[in-house]
C-alpha cells in the first residue's frame, strides 16, 4: 500500500498541483462571496452554489487521484474510443438533452447536470496528440492538415448544433498545437488576418472593403516580382479574403439577435449600456471599483447585489476584481501565466510526442479560456460565455479541466518510464 502511494505521487510536478489547488480554492472562496446568502452562511451549505462547488471540488480531487493511479500508457491507448464516445454523447444530447436558455447541451440528473461539450475538450486534445504523434505523420502534408482539421471540426460542428457557440470557439485554440507541430506560421498570421477581416467586415460596408482589398493587392503586385506565381498567390489571397468577408457578412446576418448585439457592443457599434452592453459595463464597474486592494471579502456590492450577471460562472473574475482589487486580479493572472509557461516547459521535456502534443493542447485550451473569459470582463474581448478554468462554478467544467490537467501531470510523471 505504502509503495503504491509513493508510486502515485512519484515524479509528480508539484508546482502544477499547487497552482491547481490554489486556483480551485480561490475560485471556491469567490463563488462563496459572489452568491453569498446570509441565511446560509456556511461555505459547506449544500443548498447553495458554494456548497455544491465543494462537492465538485471533492469529486474532482477524487478524479485526479484516479487519473494518477491509472497506468501512464492508458491515455494514449483510450484516446480514440474516448473521443468517439464523447462525440456520440454530443449527438445524444441533441436528442435527450435538456434545453437551457436556447442551448441543448445538458444531460440533467435531478439537480445536477453534465455538459458533454466540456469533456470534448480533453478528448479532442488526446486524439489530436494521438494522431499527430504517429511516426509517419508530417504537419506539412496536406493529408495531415485535413485529418487534423476534421478531428477539430467534428466536435465544433456538433457543439454548434447544440447552440453552444462559446464552447465551440475553444477548439480553434488547437491551431497553436498544430503550429507547434509544424504548421506554417502563415496559418497563424492568416488566422490573425482572418480575425481582422472579420472585424472589418462587420464595421465597413463589404463592397467598399473588397474594392479596398483589390487596390491593396494591385499595389502589392506592383512592388513584387511580376511572376505568374506571385500573381496567383495574391489573387487567391484576394479571393479568399473576399470569401471570408462575404461569409462573415452572411453569418452575421443569420446570427441570433442577442449574439448580433454582443458583437455590435464589442465593436462599439452599439453602446446601449442598459441592454446588450449592460453586462460588460457592470463587469467593468465591478472590477474597476475594486481599486488596488479591493473592497474586502464579502463587501463587493456589484457582485453581491446582482449588478453583474452570471457572477459565479462566466463573470467570476469580477468578484476577484471587486473584492480583492488589483492585488487579487494580478495574483490570479500571474498564477495562470506561471501554470501556462510551466506546461510549455513540461511539454518540451517529454520524450513521448503524444505527451508533448497533449501538453500543448492543454496549454492552448487553458490559454483560450483565460484570455477570452478575463478579456470579456475587462472589455478586451467579446462576451463569449465560457468559464474561467478552475475558478468558475460548475461541475462539468471543473471536472473537465481537472481531467485535462491531471492527465498531463500523470503523463509527465510517467515520462521517465517511457523508452525512447
Amino acid at each position: 500500500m505504502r509503495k503504491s502511494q509513493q508510486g502515485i505521487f512519484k515524479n509528480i510536478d508539484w508546482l502544477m498541483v499547487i497552482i491547481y489547488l490554489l486556483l480551485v480554492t480561490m475560485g471556491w472562496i469567490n463563488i462563496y462571496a459572489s452568491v453569498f446568502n446570509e441565511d446560509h452562511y456556511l461555505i459547506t451549505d449544500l443548498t447553495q452554489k458554494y456548497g455544491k462547488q465543494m462537492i465538485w471540488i471533492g469529486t474532482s480531487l477524487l478524479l485526479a487521484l484516479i487519473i494518477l493511479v491509472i497506468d501512464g500508457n492508458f491515455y494514449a491507448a483510450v484516446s480514440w474510443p474516448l473521443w468517439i464516445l464523447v462525440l456520440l454523447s454530443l449527438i445524444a444530447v441533441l436528442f435527450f438533452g435538456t434545453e437551457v436558455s436556447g442551448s441543448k447541451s445538458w444531460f440533467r440528473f435531478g439537480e445536477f447536470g453534465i455538459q458533454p461539450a466540456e469533456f470534448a475538450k480533453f478528448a479532442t486534445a488526446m486524439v489530436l496528440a494521438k494522431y499527430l504523434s504517429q511516426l509517419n505523420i508530417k504537419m506539412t502534408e496536406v493529408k495531415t492538415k485535413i485529418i487534423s482539421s476534421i478531428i477539430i471540426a467534428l466536435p465544433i460542428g456538433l457543439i454548434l448544433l447544440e447552440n453552444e457557440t462559446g464552447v465551440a470557439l475553444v477548439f480553434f485554440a488547437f491551431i497553436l498545437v498544430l503550429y507547434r507541430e509544424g504548421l506554417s506560421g502563415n496559418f497563424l498570421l492568416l488566422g490573425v488576418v482572418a480575425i481582422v477581416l472579420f472585424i472589418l467586415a462587420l464595421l465597413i460596408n463589404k463592397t467598399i472593403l473588397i474594392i479596398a482589398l483589390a487596390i491593396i493587392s494591385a499595389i502589392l503586385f506592383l512592388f513584387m516580382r511580376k511572376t505568374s506565381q506571385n500573381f496567383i498567390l495574391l489573387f487567391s489571397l484576394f479571393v479568399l479574403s473576399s470569401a471570408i468577408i462575404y461569409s462573415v457578412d452572411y453569418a452575421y446576418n443569420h446570427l441570433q439577435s442577442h449574439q448580433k448585439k454582443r458583437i455590435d457592443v464589442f465593436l462599439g457599434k452599439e453602446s446601449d449600456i442598459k441592454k446588450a452592453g449592460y453586462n460588460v459595463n457592470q463587469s467593468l464597474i465591478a472590477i474597476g471599483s475594486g481599486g488596488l486592494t479591493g473592497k474586502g471579502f464579502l463587501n463587493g456590492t456589484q457582485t453581491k447585489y446582482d449588478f453583474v450577471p452570471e457572477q459565479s460562472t462566466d463573470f467570476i473574475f469580477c468578484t476577484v476584481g471587486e473584492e480583492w482589487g488589483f492585488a487579487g486580479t494580478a495574483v490570479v493572472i500571474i498564477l495562470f501565466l506561471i501554470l501556462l509557461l510551466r506546461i510549455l516547459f513540461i511539454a518540451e521535456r517529454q520524450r513521448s510526442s503524444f505527451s508533448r502534443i497533449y501538453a500543448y493542447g492543454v496549454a492552448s485550451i487553458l490559454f483560450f479560456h483565460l484570455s477570452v473569459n478575463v478579456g470579456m470582463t475587462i472589455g478586451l474581448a467579446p462576451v463569449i460565455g465560457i468559464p474561467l478554468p478552475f475558478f468558475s462554478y460548475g461541475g462539468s467544467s471543473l471536472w473537465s479541466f481537472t481531467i485535462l490537467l491531471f492527465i498531463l501531470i500523470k503523463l509527465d510523471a510517467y515520462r521517465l518510464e517511457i523508452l525512447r
Partner: protein
Amino acid sequence: MNTLSGRKLVIGGIFVAVCAIYLLRLFFIQVMDDSYKLSANNNVLRYMTEYPARGLVYDRYGTLLVYNEVAYDLMVTPRQVKVIDTLDFCKTIGIKKEQFIKKMKQAKAYSSYKESAFEKQLSKETYAALQEKLYKFKGFFVQTRTLRKYPQEIAAHTLGYVGEVNDKIIAANSYYKLGDYIGISGIEKSYEEELRGKKGLKIQMVDVFNRPKGRFKDGIYDTLAVSGQNLVSSLSAKLQKYGEQLLQNKTGAIVAIDPSNGEILASISGPSYNPNLLVGRERTKNYGKLFLDKSLPLFNRALMAYYPPGSTFKLINGLIGEQEQVTFRETRYPCARGYPVMGGKPKCHPHPSPMDLPGAVSTSCNSYFCYVFRSIIDNRKKYANVVEGYNAWRNYVLSFGIGKKIHTDLPQELPGNVPTQAYYDKYFGKNGWKSSTIVSLSIGQGELGVTPLQMANIICSIANKGFYYTPHIVKGIGPKKEPRPEYKIRHYTKIAPEYFEPIIDGMQGAVDHGTSTAARLKDIVVCGKTGTAQNPHGKDHSVFIAFAPRENPKIAVAVLVENGGWGATWAVPIGGLMIEKYLRDSISKPDMEKRMLEGIVLSTEKKKAKETE
C-alpha cells in the same frame, strides 16, 4: 524537430504578451481610473432624504396658524409593476385610462428601476381606499409627505405659502434638491431657514432590482432630520380675522402694531384670499385664478401699496415745526377756508380760526400746516436757501421710517417715497422751486408715497414720543421665543419727546370732539388723526391713524380704505373697532360694527399697482 521546438518561444511569447496586456488594463481600470468607483456607488447607494417637519406658527395667544398635514404621494417603480387590473386601479385613484398610460410612460422615461411620483397628494379618502388594494398593485407604494395647512384661514399675505423649488433656487442654494419645498412668500419665506429644519440623509444599499439591502456601512454616514423651529407670530388671530371681516368688500389695508415693542398685531390687505387655496393639488389652478383677478388679491397692500398720507402727515409737520423752534403750542395761524398766503389754496373746511397747534390738529386745518411748513423751509436764519431747508425737513421725515425700507421681517416690503431735492430740481429746474411750490407736502399730498405699514409705524413713533421698534411679525423663534435681535432696538426720530404733547393733545381732541369722533371709546383715551388721501384716479382714499390708550399705548393702528372718501366715513370707524376689539375684546357700538361689516366700497380706481411677484 529542433527547429520546431523554437516555436515554444513564440507560443510562450503570446501567453506572456496577452497576460501583460491584461495586467496593464487591470492596473489602469482598477488603480488609475476612479470613475468606476463612482459608478459602483451610483449603482448600489440610494440617498434617501428624510424630510424634517416644517416648523409650526402660532399667534401671540397660542392659536395655531400654520401646521403640517400629511399628504400621500403615490409612487411607482415601473420595472416592478406587474399586470394589474388597470380599470380598478384608475377608478380607485380617480384617473382615466389614458392618463394612466401617459403617467406610466413618464415614469418609465424617468427610470424603470427608480421610483418616481405617479400621482401626487392623494386625498385621505383616496389613500384609504387605495391602501386596502395596494397589495394588488405591485410596483406602487405610497410615500407620505407634509402639506402646509392654515386652520384659521386668515393672514394669507403675511403667512405666505410654500412651493416646490425651481432650477434657479437649486442652482443658487445647494441645500435644495429637486422636489423640495421652500417658502415663497410671507413668513414662510422670510423665516425659511428657521422653519425648514434640517434634512436628514439615509444611505441605503439596493440590489440590481432596487430592493433595499440594508444601511450603508451600518449607517455611520446617516444623519437624522431635525425638525424646523416653531414660530410665535405677534399676530392676534382674533384681531386679524376681525380686521379681515371689516375690510371685506372693500379695498385697502389695516396695520395694527403694539407700539411698546413693534409687534405687528394685525396686517390686513383687502381683498385677500384663503391661504389654503395655495396648497396641494389645486395650487397651480388657484394661483392662476388669483393672479388674473382684477382686484389683485395677491397684492399685499399693507406692505406694498403707496398712498399719500393725507392729513395724517400734518402730525409730522407739526412735530418738525416744534423741533425747529418755529412752531409752538400757542402759535396761531389764520385760516380763511384756505391758505391765505396763496390766495386760499389749498382749501380748508369751515372751523374756528385762528387756532393753536392742538386745535389745528384736532380740526385738521390745512392752512395752519402750510404756515408751519413754510416757516420750516423758509427759515433763513437757519437755512441759507430753500434747498437746505427742504433737506433738513426731509431728514426729519425719513427718521419716522418713511421713504426707505424699515426692514420688517416680511418679504416684499417697499420703501415708499419722499421726494428728493434732486427730484424737484429735475422737475422744476434748479432754483425753480420754493416752499410754496411744494406746499402740498405740508398736508400729506403731492409726491409722498407711504405704505400702510409705514403709517402704522409713524403712529407708533408718536405714541412712544419719539422712537419706534421696527415692526415685525415674529416675536418668538424656537424654544427661546425671542425675536430676531434687531427688533429689540429702538429707532429714535429726530424729534425730542417734549414736543409730542401738543400733537397728542390735538389727536385726542380729534377723537373726542374733532374729525375722528367715530373712534371714541368709553374709558379709553384714543388719539387719532384722519386723512383723506387725494386720488387722481378716482374717489379719494379714506385714511385714519390712531393709538390707544394715551398712557402706555397698547395698540397703534393705520387704516386705509381705497376710494372710501372722507377719513371719517370708513377709516375712522374701522380703526375704532379694531382698537376696541384688541383692548376690550368686545364691541360697544354694534350698529357701527354692522355698518362696517356690511359696507361695500366699490373700487373706482383703475388698477395699475404692481403684481406681487
